[in-house]
């Protein structure tokens, strides 16, 4: 157990209207780290955040802050602040008064308030916006005011609930960098909630992948990407081909009618497993040099590379390559041992990682839905 843990969730469960939202969750969060709850809508990530903030009481379990149980502590007494999905700026107050709001409650002198507000405004690059109306600000500017308002009261932890969800792509990328910089500069803990895997990978020190009210995997972005624990994680983070395989021996897996060398061991002999192969890790070679071969069923230009769907023994693989391939042609593939990742069978086996029903539109639609889990 880490000595510098600041938040600990112990056996947390909560349900609304008989629907279990969080199921016996255990988690600790270290001081000064950037931790992200990542998962699809309805996975319980926002609920977890609201439990930490104090807006929800868990049905059972303990929320521990700095070694003390804070279950019964109301939100206004907790030393942590939240950035809300839609910012929740006070429309009847201007930018200055919004940022000063929390400070005024703490009976701080007007001079100090002014100093802090000025400092916060410069931190979020909004110098000179003091007297502006909230309604006259753009989404990105409102976002910055929300951050300044929360940071002005010097919280130990900042909770961010899909803060960039309402911004357009370009602005979102800029804000990702800026948020990460602010977190490093202030050295406080950020607990971040998102359904955007790319956002999670690029910003976090630690990612908590959630689904169905349960933690699926905790790890660094690299761990999560390279060593997904189950088919859900593998599919949710990045693109994956997930193939059913059998572990014939340590370092040997059989899939798609062929035996492959891999780096995984410790499985039972002839144990059924899920095999993850990332699309960018597959090399296209002439058929005669190939380990396996298949027919190209579609090809899409993606800018950096082509996305090629190849049918191999009835299973559709996605492969990313910079070379164009003719639809209908047969191509050969090579998969290096370090490109293969073996996972134990789980409840998610067989649900993900097949591109036979793959459609660009579906993917984007599900990305665009903003999650409102409550």
């Amino acid at each position, binding site marked *: 157990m880490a000595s510098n843990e600041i938040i600990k969730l112990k056996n947390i469960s909560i349900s609304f209207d008989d629907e279990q939202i969080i199921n016996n969750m255990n988690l600790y969060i270290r001081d000064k780290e950037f931790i992200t709850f990542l998962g699809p809508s309805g996975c319980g990530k926002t609920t977890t955040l609201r439990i930490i903030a104090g807006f929800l009481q868990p049905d059972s379990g303990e929320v521990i802050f700095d070694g003390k149980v804070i279950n019964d502590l109301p*939100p206004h007494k907790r030393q942590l602040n939240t950035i809300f999905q839609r910012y*929740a700026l006070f429309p009847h107050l201007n930018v200055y008064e919004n940022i000063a709001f929390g400070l005024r409650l703490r009976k701080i002198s007007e001079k100090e308030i002014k100093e802090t507000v000025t400092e916060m405004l410069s931190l979020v690059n909004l110098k000179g916006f003091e007297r*502006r*109306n909230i*309604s006259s600000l753009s989404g990105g500017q409102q976002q910055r005011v929300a951050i300044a308002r929360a940071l002005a009261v010097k919280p130990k932890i900042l909770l961010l609930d899909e803060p960039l969800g309402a911004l357009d792509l370009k602005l979102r990328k800029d804000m990702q960098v800026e948020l990460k910089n602010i977190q490093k500069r202030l050295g406080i803990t950020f607990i971040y909630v998102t359904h955007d895997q790319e956002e999670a990978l690029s910003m976090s020190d630690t990612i908590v992948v959630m689904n169905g009210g349960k933690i699926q995997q905790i790890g660094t972005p690299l761990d999560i990407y390279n060593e997904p624990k189950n088919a859900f994680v593998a599919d949710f983070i990045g693109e994956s081909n997930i193939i059913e395989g059998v572990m014939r021996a340590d370092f040997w897996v059989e899939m798609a009618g062929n035996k492959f060398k891999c780096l995984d061991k410790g499985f039972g002999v002839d144990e059924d497993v899920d095999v993850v192969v990332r699309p960018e890790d597959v090399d296209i070679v002439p058929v005669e040099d190939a380990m396996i071969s298949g027919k190209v069923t579609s090809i899409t230009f993606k800018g950096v590379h082509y996305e090629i769907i190849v049918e191999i023994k009835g299973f559709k693989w996605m492969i990313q390559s910079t070379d164009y391939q003719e639809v209908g042609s047969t191509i050969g593939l090579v998969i290096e041992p370090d490109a293969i990742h073996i996972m134990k069978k789980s409840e998610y086996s067989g649900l993900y990682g097949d591109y036979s029903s793959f459609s660009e539109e579906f993917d984007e639609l599900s990305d665009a839905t903003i999650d409102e889990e409550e």
Partner: protein
Amino acid sequence: MKKKSLFSKIYPILVFGFLYAPIAVLILFSFNAGKSTAIFEGFSLRWYEEVFRDTATLEAFKNTVIVAVVSAIISTVMGTAAAIAINNYKLKWFKQATLTTTNIPMMNPDIVTGISMMLLFVFISALFGKTGTLGFTTLTIAHVTFELPYVILNVLPKLRQTDIHLSEAAQDLGCTPIQSFFKVVLPQIMPGILSGLMMAFTLSVDDFIISYFVSGTTSQTLPIRIFSMTKKRVTPDMYALSTLIFLAILVLLVISNIITAKSENKKHKQGSKKGGA
């Protein structure tokens, strides 16, 4: 298209002509030199002088204002509190029952509301063996009762529109729940409360039917006074009084419209200043 726009120009003029014809007649005859409200005998201001000499009318005017102010304040405070509570009720049937009850005075014909309250007051006073209970108190109670639904229905939508996260954000920043209500929620629902208050006041000033049944003889309001006068032949002094009230309202409305137009203009200008995304 051309033809239609001609219709859309003329039609409103016709309807407004219809709406304002009796008012024009009323204002015209308030300046009548004669006593008639039908034959104009020349211009005079005598009826305006008459208004200020008629103590019964002035008394009725005073009563109207007092009842309107008192009942509007009571109904606004109680109604706002009720709206907040209703908004927080979790029991579906209880919430629905409360809302349905609230709708009754709006749906019921005024005459039924009036006599039902009259019967209650008469019944209660009979229980205590008293007579002549109808008066200022019963009048105020009745006014509060029929104003309440309008206050509630003005405040409730504002509460629903208010982002629940605003109150959470305030608590997040250190407000107690009560502080967060006064600092954040109240300013958001203020427009609803004010329009509820205005509506309550207007309804109270305007009400005749309900007041007619619950006011008794001691506390006449202006509409009741007018009613008793229209039983006989009306003299133009009533017209003069209405004209004065009408003009006062007109001026108030124009001023408030100018003020809101100005503040909106200001907002608009600020709004257009905002940069790209």
